[in-house]
């Protein structure tokens, strides 16, 4: 087995074992996983050359759908909450998508932002339904009817989420290699030719858009259950920006980059906030600047070039 495969595998094993060695890491890793799934949605759209500054919308739609279901059925059940969350983001993704896929680049980005901020305002203002700025509590749900204590529930959420994320990442990876996934990439390079192949560029982008909304939704409902509370902040533009930030950090256009980026971001955010409460955002800012200037392919790209240098050395007689 080559080094290229060994290192990611070791990293995966380390992450799987970390909650056993250090139980405190469980929740941070679960949050990173949830964000990684949402970032994957951004990565899908980046393949088509489009950046959305409003994808927190789907994150929030799903989270609130799960929260409502939980409140309606005394605590709720985990699987159904995730399903309803994903279904809600899919429906809203389709509706918003039908409108925004008519636009490209800055207009696409800003329209998404507008939709997410409309939803943010609704969450804030419809106090009697959504709890306003205080948000809604999400009680720990049962799992297939079994009530669980906090610790085993968090363990289940992390490992279940991990398996789900691996399956989803593989699915997205396959999608991007499919004819449809490749057609979506051509929206970035030559939409005219795509139309002259008899394919609707809008429908192609819509397929990618709905997929990206679904991924953000999956991340959103896992986040809601993990945090135990949903607030309008879930839909706020800073959250959308964060998703784009992580996508660039991890490596725009790379499936693994979404999760690597989310992991690094979440760890830095959690611990930097503790040690450098006032300026941790500045540290992240400089970090991103460095990535954009010196490693435009993100952390995954950085890893790639380090490995390439290493392999070249090995090849030498």
């Amino acid at each position: 087995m080559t080094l290229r495969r060994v290192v990611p595998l070791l990293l995966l094993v380390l992450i799987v074992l970390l909650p056993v060695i250090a139980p405190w890491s469980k929740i941070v890793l679960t949050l990173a996983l949830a964000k990684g799934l949402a970032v994957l949605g951004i990565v899908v759209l980046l393949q088509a050359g489009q950046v959305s500054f409003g994808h927190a919308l789907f994150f929030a739609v799903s989270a609130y759908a799960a929260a409502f279901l939980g409140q309606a059925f005394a605590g709720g059940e985990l699987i159904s909450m995730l399903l309803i969350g994903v279904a809600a983001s899919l429906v809203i993704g389709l509706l918003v998508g039908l409108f925004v896929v008519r636009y490209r680049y800055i207009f696409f980005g800003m329209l998404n932002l507008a939709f997410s901020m409309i939803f943010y305002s609704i969450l804030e203002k419809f106090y009697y339904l959504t709890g306003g700025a205080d948000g809604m509590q999400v009680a720990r749900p049962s799992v297939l009817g079994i009530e669980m204590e906090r610790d085993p529930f968090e363990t289940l959420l992390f490992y279940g989420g991990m398996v789900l994320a691996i399956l989803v990442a593989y699915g997205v990876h396959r999608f991007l290699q499919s004819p449809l996934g490749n057609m979506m990439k051509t929206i970035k390079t030559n939409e005219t030719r795509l139309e002259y192949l008899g394919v609707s560029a809008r429908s192609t982008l819509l397929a990618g858009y709905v997929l990206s909304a679904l991924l953000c939704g999956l991340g959103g409902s896992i986040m809601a259950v993990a945090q135990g509370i949903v607030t309008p902040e879930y839909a706020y533009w800073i959250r959308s920006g964060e998703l784009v930030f992580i996508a660039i950090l991890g490596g725009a256009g790379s499936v693994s980059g979404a999760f690597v980026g989310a992991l690094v971001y979440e760890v830095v955010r959690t611990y930097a906030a503790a040690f450098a409460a006032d300026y941790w955002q500045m540290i992240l800012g400089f970090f991103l600047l460095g990535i954009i200037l010196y490693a435009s392919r993100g952390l995954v790209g950085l890893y790639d070039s380090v490995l390439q240098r290493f392999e070249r050395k090995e090849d030498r007689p």
Partner: protein
Amino acid sequence: MSSGEILLEAKGLEIHFGGVVAADNVNIQIAEGRNLAIIGPNGAGKTTFLNICTGYVKPASGHVYFRGREVTRRSPREITRLGVARAFQIPQLFAEHTALENLLIAASARQRRWNPFERLSSIPERAEMERLLDLVNCSDVADRLVNELPEGQRKLIDIAVALALKPKLLLMDEPTSGVASSEKYGVMDILVQALAEAEVTAVFVEHDMGIVEKYADKVAVWSAGQIQLEGTPAEILEHPDVIENVIGEEV
């Protein structure tokens, strides 16, 4: 190749861009199996005609029929689906894909391969596309990104992408521009053979009269948005008006 059926028919096409008349009562029939060359000075409306036929430009008045079916106000996408493919003066390719991938995407579009878990690299049409790439002499660059390739090869791949759709009619805008003059005839030989093999009728805008003479079955002379003359290459290229107005300019 069977000939006779009227593939494309234009009736009374009119369009103006500001003061420029790009189509002024254009009437023409394109029969299956008879490759048509369109010649004429720059700005005569040759490309506009292709744009109207493929739905990129809507005429102010007039009609376009493809195999008896009105397509005048249809989108490029719909017209492509009916069997009209197009190659461009400036090759329109997917820059971040390889030459072979460009063709595979075209084949997937033709076959409507929407299964998200199927791999583009292993669709059943792959062998067919490799043959097509071989037909236009580009199999040695199959795995190269198209924007790394010289213009001549990009041009051929652009045409191959159009052929991958298995059209009935192929509209080409100056297929040999950008190709080194020493290679033009070689390229056209390859092309005409590929067209015949795929049973595709071609319409091509061309400035090189040698090419027109050798490869066209019929020639139409465009000038100021109108078709001045139509006929066989021998008739047209000997015509005094053409020698004076079209060929004269080329020299």
